[in-house]
């Protein structure tokens, strides 16, 4: 992103979505919905990202990441409609 003060870099949208899934609470899901509304990603692409994501070996994070997946896929489907 270019602006008069310099160049701003940010993680790719899919990576932002993945990081937010490590907690996946209401607020995160709202943020993910916003991200997907700005840059739709297909459920298929997301599923591929879920499969290759390097999830920290912490039981709680793994459980939350798995629980968030159907919710995020639904948000992705909704954003494509």
């Amino acid at each position, binding site marked *: 992103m270019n602006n008069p003060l310099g160049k701003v870099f940010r993680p790719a949208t899919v990576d932002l979505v993945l990081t937010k899934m490590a*907690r996946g609470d*209401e607020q995160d899901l709202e943020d993910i919905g916003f991200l997907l509304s700005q840059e739709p990603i297909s459920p298929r692409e997301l599923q591929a990202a879920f499969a290759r994501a390097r999830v920290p070996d912490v039981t709680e994070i793994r459980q939350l990441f798995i629980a968030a997946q159907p919710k995020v896929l639904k948000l992705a489907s909704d954003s494509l409609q």
Partner: protein
Amino acid sequence: MELREQTPRLTLAQKLGDVTHVSPLLRKVRGLSGCAEDRVGEWLLKCAVERGATHYRRDFDAGLPPDNPSLGDEELGVALCLAHHPFNPMLIRAAAQLLSTRHTDARTLVRLVVMERCEPVLLHIAGAAGRVAPEQEPWASLRAQLTSRRQLRTDALPHWSRFVSQTGYTPQGRGPHIEWLTRHE
């Protein structure tokens, strides 16, 4: 800067599957602030930030009335957790930081929480504190003294990690460092 469209929100009560009561505290807050019901939450948040819930500092509408010292800190914390507000996790998070101080009177707080039927929300915060900072007051006292009226859906309430500051890097080196957010005094 507004980044999102505003959509009507469910109330906290609706999110929890609860019903609201006639709240004396909400009535007091509305009287002291002069705010209409849809602005009360924002006013409470502004007051909490000014009193030390600094993690949630932001630009508030300049038209909001000034803080009113007639509203006690315990009252302010509980008012932020009232189920009448449109659902906004930031109010609950600010309440957690505001009340996280040795100056909070646990006895007053427990009485208000019961009177205002906020046990599920405050016990949720207390449970999160128990995980990260078990000795932190007033949460240890709340866990000891409060019981929930009944089981509600608390999955909409902020995840425990929302009440803390955490980093993977500190001056001491790499590794998770988690701190319960306490009131800035």
